[in-house]
């Protein structure tokens, strides 16, 4: 049987036996870890033994720690996410919640709809099941039937009758500050949950602190993938959920030859590695790669290199203000190659900020962006705009943050306590939640989410349409690596280099080209 089936069964066993294993499990690993993560974790173990359980005083609020950047470079995303959190908390306190519930480790089961065949590669990493076409090009009608309204009564105001309170300091896009703030929220305010992080750097900055305190932590961003951390739940989509469908579509539609331009840092390099490694499995091939420092903002040379290579399509993994300039400059230079990405439009809403046709022909496999044409999403957008009339856009990260908040509330209600270890257990019982994007499934073994992925296309007038849908694509890579955080907790981030499958493609090629 395949790796993931294996995992599922294991996870189910644990689902039953619960308590013991998770509290007994870590002790062995710690030894190992002390070498890796050094004294930090040593101290963490000490700390964790001494931390008392949260007092259950009835009317004291449930503290939700929330760090994002409201100033500095990343404020454009931070402010969106803050608003999402505020909206969710308001709803929670008004006695609302999102539909959904625990469905066991196996997946959506009876509650949600599967994609006919989510893309999964077999252990030896050769074959890749073809992703089913979700249906015809559809701007306003829906491919899969789903409940129009997912916001229902939770039966109580707040969480366990306690008011949900948002503590949201400003990280100022400054990692040192992030660490201080995380420590404050965890050690001083003793928050019941921490929801934080845009840039991977920020996540990595606070993860050691989170692990020291065994703090329940949600990272709500789309990111490069690979975080296997018993205390961390990643509710955003990762490479395998976006790159493969996207590339597959481009190869079918435009031809095999792809060219990658990526921001020259972790996210860009790793996602580029994914693209390079999986293009062949869907009949494509990466004929050129370029990594661009975040400081570069003038792209004539890059454009010329692409023109030289004459690819069928371009994978753009450009991040940050400077890099956004690529699109108008490329358009002005008359660059007409179709583009595919995992970040643009859905996050920085470049298609709203840049006049057409800068992003004409941009494809993006994402789980959410404001235009998603479902009724439940329209309702969500309406609620949002009612609360924040001046907001320009609702990006995918904002949506993740929104449903994550509700997910936490539901988990606490099931656990019947805010004690973090118990809530983690509850979260590890396999949740599905009806988010604005569609049905999301939180996979216990990897602490990652299966998402409803859509292929968004931007036309020359910057209208977005969704031409394909994959109602459930799992974050299967960590499963493939045999990660099972329920049985054996870890606290690291895997990189493709640690996967033998990648090394076939990565060897020597990960260097600059």
């Amino acid at each position, binding site marked *: 049987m395949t790796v993931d089936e294996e995992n599922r069964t294991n996870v189910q066993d644990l689902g039953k036996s619960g308590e013991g294993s998770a509290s007994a499990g870590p002790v062995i690993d710690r030894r190992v870890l*002390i*070498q*890796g*993560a*050094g*004294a*930090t974790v*040593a*101290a963490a173990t000490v700390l964790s033994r001494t931390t008392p359980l949260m007092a259950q005083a009835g009317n004291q609020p449930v503290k939700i720690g929330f760090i994002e950047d*409201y*100033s*500095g470079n990343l*404020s454009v995303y931070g402010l969106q996410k803050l608003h999402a959190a505020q909206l969710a908390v308001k709803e929670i306190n008004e006695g609302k919640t999102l539909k959904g519930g625990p469905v066991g480790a196996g997946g959506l089961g009876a509650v949600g709809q599967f994609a006919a065949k989510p893309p999964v590669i077999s252990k030896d990493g050769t074959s890749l099941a073809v992703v089913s076409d979700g249906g015809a090009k559809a701007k306003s009608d829906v491919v899969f039937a789903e409940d129009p309204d997912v916001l229902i009564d939770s039966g109580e105001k707040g969480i366990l009758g306690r008011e949900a309170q948002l503590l*949201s*300091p*400003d*990280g*100022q896009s*400054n*990692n*040192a*500050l992030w*660490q*201080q*703030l995380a*420590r*404050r929220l*965890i*050690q*001083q305010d003793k928050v019941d949950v921490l929801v934080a992080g845009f*840039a*991977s*750097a920020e996540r*990595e*900055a606070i*993860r*050691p602190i989170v692990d020291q305190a065994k703090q329940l932590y949600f990272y709500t961003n789309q990111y490069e993938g690979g975080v296997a951390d018993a205390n961390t739940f990643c509710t955003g989509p990762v490479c395998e959920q976006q790159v493969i469908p996207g590339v597959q579509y481009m190869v079918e539609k435009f031809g095999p030859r792809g060219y990658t331009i990526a921001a*020259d*840092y*972790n*996210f860009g*390099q*790793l996602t580029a590695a994914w693209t390079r490694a999986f293009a062949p499995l869907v009949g494509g091939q990466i004929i050129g790669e370029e*990594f661009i*420092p*975040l*400081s570069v903002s003038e792209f004539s040379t890059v454009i010329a290199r692409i023109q030289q290579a004459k690819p069928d399509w371009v994978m753009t993994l450009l991040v940050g203000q400077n890099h956004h300039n690529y699109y108008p400059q490329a358009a002005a230079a008359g660059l007409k190659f179709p583009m595919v990405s995992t970040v643009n439009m859905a996050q920085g809403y470049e298609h709203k900020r840049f006049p057409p046709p800068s992003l004409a022909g941009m494809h993006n496999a994402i789980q959410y962006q404001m235009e998603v044409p479902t009724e439940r999403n329209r309702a969500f957008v309406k609620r949002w705009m009612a609360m924040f009339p001046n907001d320009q856009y609702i990006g995918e990260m904002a949506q993740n943050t929104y449903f994550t908040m509700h997910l936490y509330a539901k988990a606490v209600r099931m656990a019947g306590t805010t004690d973090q270890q118990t809530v983690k257990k509850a979260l590890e019982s396999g949740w599905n939640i009806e988010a604005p994007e569609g049905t999301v499934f939180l996979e216990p073994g990897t602490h990652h989410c299966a998402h409803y992925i859509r292929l968004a296309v931007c036309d020359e007038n910057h209208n977005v349409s969704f031409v394909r849908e994959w109602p459930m694509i799992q974050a299967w890579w960590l499963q493939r690596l045999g990660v099972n955080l329920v049985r054996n907790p870890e606290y690291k981030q895997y*990189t493709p*280099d640690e996967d033998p499958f990648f090394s076939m493609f*990565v060897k020597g090629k*990960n*260097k*600059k080209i």
Partner: protein
Amino acid sequence: MRTLIGLINGPEDIGRSQWFWLLASAVLLVLFLLPLWASEFQSSNIAYYLLNIPMALGLSLLWGYCGVLSFGQVAYFGMAGYAYGVIAGNLAGNTWGPLVGSLGGLAICAATGAIFGYFVFYGRVQNWIVPILTLVFTLLLETFLGQTAGYQWRIGHVQLGGYNGMTGIPSFQLGSEIFFGYPFYYFTLAITLACYLTCRMFVNARYGKVLLAIREDVIRTELLGYDIRACQLGVFVMAAMLSGMSGLLYVQWGNYITPSQVGLFQASLPVIWVAIGGREKLLAVAISTFALNWLNYALSQAGNEYAPVIMGALLLAVMLFFPGGIIVTLAAGRRRRERSRVPISANEEST
């Protein structure tokens, strides 16, 4: 011993009266007893404010006493941090690894500082270009570190980690004693104090007098037979090592460092701390560094998006109304009332 005290109590810094020393020892006592009522978190925060001080002191020596502004002190901050991470990380498990790492970090700062400083000062680069040069150097370092995400960028079994930074850096450790939490707070306090006293003695010693002369009039000093380049180089290296010290403490505090620590924004911070306090007095710089770090943290934890505006306005106000730095000016005012000794005013650094 006597001479030591003499040096510490020399004229070249704020405060010589017994009242000052009384106050100083009171403050020290408070800092020492702090853990009695401060939580582990609060003391770790205060440790963070403290650990920036050595870097600021170094810049004060360089800019305030030597008239050379470096915009790239964070480069040495980062270098020391990364070096420590690599060395101590590879020696993980070895109880003396962290010590070796620290020494290694300082050594690398000293070496790089010496080379770069030679490059600058023996090249007779004009004074006002030095900040730009150092800044370019910093940007270069950041650009390089930012793209070291790939697996090939590992030294021993430590990953440089690119923009996401280097994680799991060991805390400082002497033998079996691991400096974490309260112990680390005391460790930081001790190091910072040591750095300050060393600098204070330094500026009051012969060599310091020469720095004074250089600040006053470079050419006159050279025409008294002093090799300006050598003096400036010496101070530059010293400043680099002080930044390194801060870098070491930083990674030991957060067990983590990223290239953005070497970025444009971080690079400008020390300049601000020093300018606001008054670059010509070590103590002033130390105080302002502590205060501004605290202020910034206070503003940000309030989730206040006006934080940068307030910082900027503060900066503007200080530079306009207290060109010599706010603390220096205040202290000078007091001194003037005490005895009719006119303080060294903010003297032009231009050449």
